[in-house]
């Protein structure tokens, strides 16, 4: 059963439309991430769900009840802000207690929940610190604990890790996932970081320019994106224009590849760098047939893999090879192999409404 149901929410700031009708749902206990570039309307949507910003249209249901007319304090939702928004005049413990006092939770129950949240957010021993006496990571954990003690129907996160340095971000990402597994709170998480989204989410909602582009599990969206935007935004890819006829399509340099389904006319495919096979051709040139046009233009060694730039016809392809005994030097001709059953991408026209 879906815990949160967002239907056709729109948001206009004056004459400019920040959200075109946006719909999405989050199941009970699910961790859903809204992923999109900065300015695409992620925060606007989250604030509307929280009730601290007013939608221009559409409706929101939480646990079956319509909530879009309620003030934020009566929605049973808690939120972790990008700025943490801790109360600077209260200690850590007072910050955690604030919401419980506002909701008239019994003293003993307050105590129990605070102690539990302090423990699972690894804040033990910091209860009498002021927020300013805490590091960024600790402040972030207090913000999280302050939301968790509320035991809300839904937890909202607006880029909670984006103010932290890369290493801490990584640690906290894992802690957040572990925490979610443990308490199972229904969560809607916003980020512009695709690695974060893929590592944490049960499902990802890809947004761009105020619309939902595509929804799926991280694996689905990475392996077989249906939208060109998704393919380009999640990880690295080669977006190639093709001309299809039947189950076959011609790549820009004329090579034939297999398609996943019948198609006709011009289209686009996404081929991940790691799904292209690369092999140096013999210097003698025995297998010249498939080798002739492809040449290594550049290579960067990434440690676990090598990333090649390969010139083929007028196209520069990104090809990554894991392992490998030796790097192929620039200038060498190479043979490339493409995966079977490539799906054709839909390129959602910008004026079509997102479902």
């Amino acid at each position, binding site marked *: 059963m879906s815990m949160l149901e967002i239907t056709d929410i729109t948001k206009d700031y004056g004459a400019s439309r920040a959200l075109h009708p946006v719909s999405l749902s989050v199941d009970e206990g699910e961790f859903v991430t809204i992923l999109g570039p900065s300015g695409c309307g992620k925060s606007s949507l989250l604030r509307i769900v929280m*009730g601290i910003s007013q939608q221009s249209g559409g409706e929101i249901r939480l646990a079956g009840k319509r909530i879009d007319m309620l*003030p934020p*304090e009566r929605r049973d939702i*808690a939120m972790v802000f990008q*700025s943490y928004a801790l109360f600077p005049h209260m200690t850590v413990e007072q910050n955690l207690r*604030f919401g419980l006092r506002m909701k008239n939770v019994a003293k003993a129950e307050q105590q129990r929940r605070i102690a539990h949240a302090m423990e699972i957010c690894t804040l033990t021993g910091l209860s009498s610190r002021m*927020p300013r006496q805490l590091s960024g990571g600790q402040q972030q954990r207090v913000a999280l604990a302050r939301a968790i003690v509320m035991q809300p129907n839904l937890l909202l996160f607006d880029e909670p890790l984006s103010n932290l340095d890369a290493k801490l971000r990584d640690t906290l990402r894992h802690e957040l996932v572990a925490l979610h597994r443990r308490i199972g709170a229904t969560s809607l998480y916003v980020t512009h970081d695709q690695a974060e989204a893929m590592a944490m989410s049960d499902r990802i909602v890809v947004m761009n320019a105020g619309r939902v582009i595509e929804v799926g599990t991280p694996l689905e969206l990475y392996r077989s994106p249906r939208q060109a935007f998704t393919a380009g935004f999640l990880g690295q890819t080669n977006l190639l224009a093709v001309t299809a006829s039947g189950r076959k399509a011609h790549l820009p340099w004329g090579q034939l590849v297999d398609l996943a389904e019948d198609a006709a006319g011009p289209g686009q495919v996404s081929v991940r760098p790691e799904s292209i096979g690369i092999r140096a051709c013999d210097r003698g040139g025995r297998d010249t047939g498939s080798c002739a046009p492809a040449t290594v233009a550049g290579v960067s060694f990434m440690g676990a893999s090598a990333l090649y730039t390969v010139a083929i016809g007028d196209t520069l392809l990104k090809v990554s090879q894991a392992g490998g005994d030796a790097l192929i030097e620039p200038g060498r001709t190479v043979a490339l192999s493409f995966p079977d059953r490539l799906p054709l991408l839909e390129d959602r026209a910008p004026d079509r409404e997102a479902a």
Partner: protein
Amino acid sequence: MSMLLRDRRMLLPLLLAPGVGYLLLFFGGPLASAFIGSLRLEDGSFTLDWYSRIFTRPSMLRGLGTSIYFGVAPVVVSLLVSVPLSLAIRRHFVGRKLFSGLYKLPLAVPGIIVGLMIIVLFERGGFIDRAIAPLGFGLPKLVRDDWGVGVILASVWKQIPFMTLIITSAFAAIPEDIRFAGRTLGASRLATFFFVEVPLAMPGITAAVLLTFIGSMGSYAIPDIVGPPTARPLSVLMVEEFNLGRFPQVFAMGMVLSAFAVAVLVAYYTLTSRIGDAHGRGDAR
């Protein structure tokens, strides 16, 4: 000069001279001479009489009480107006720009003009009185009345812009997300205001209150023009004594008023520094 600068013992006093020297010369000097003057009889011998008169003579005691009353009452009224006004200015409304420019105008008007304005407007037979007379209403005595309503009106009119200015910036300094966080944690708009916004704006509010209190307690023009003839604050009595040529008495009264102002300021500094500590300037680990 370079010789002087090379001598390290001379360096510090030299560097401090422009700031501290100015204070000593133009503030400390007169204060010290006023203090000494307040302790002398006509013949130059030591006395505490001038002070004991302030705290024993009924007219003087009344003056002291009136000074405090004219300090406190307008501040309370101004505060009750300024806080809602600050919150209103924060919100978007039509004509907000014009309004937030206009409300600062009284800052530029001298006290004596404000006093005259109050007389013109609120005196019996004044502008408002005549305006409402055809409707069968009349103003009660508001100028030179026993409760000092005229003084309070004039002081409030002058204080509100200053207070609102400081309090508005104190509220504006609170990040929007912190207010929203209150709401997301189950606090109503009102609860968020009292438990989150007011405590965070408190240093600004306290500063505004104390500074306006000091100003109105020592003000002369307004109570002289629109104050009740029966209760004159120390500032007005001082001028009377001055006109009688009793300078040591003037000095003593001045010292008492100054001591009050200083006490209030000291209270303010200890209070705000304590709040500052509570906000924790501790080392982040």
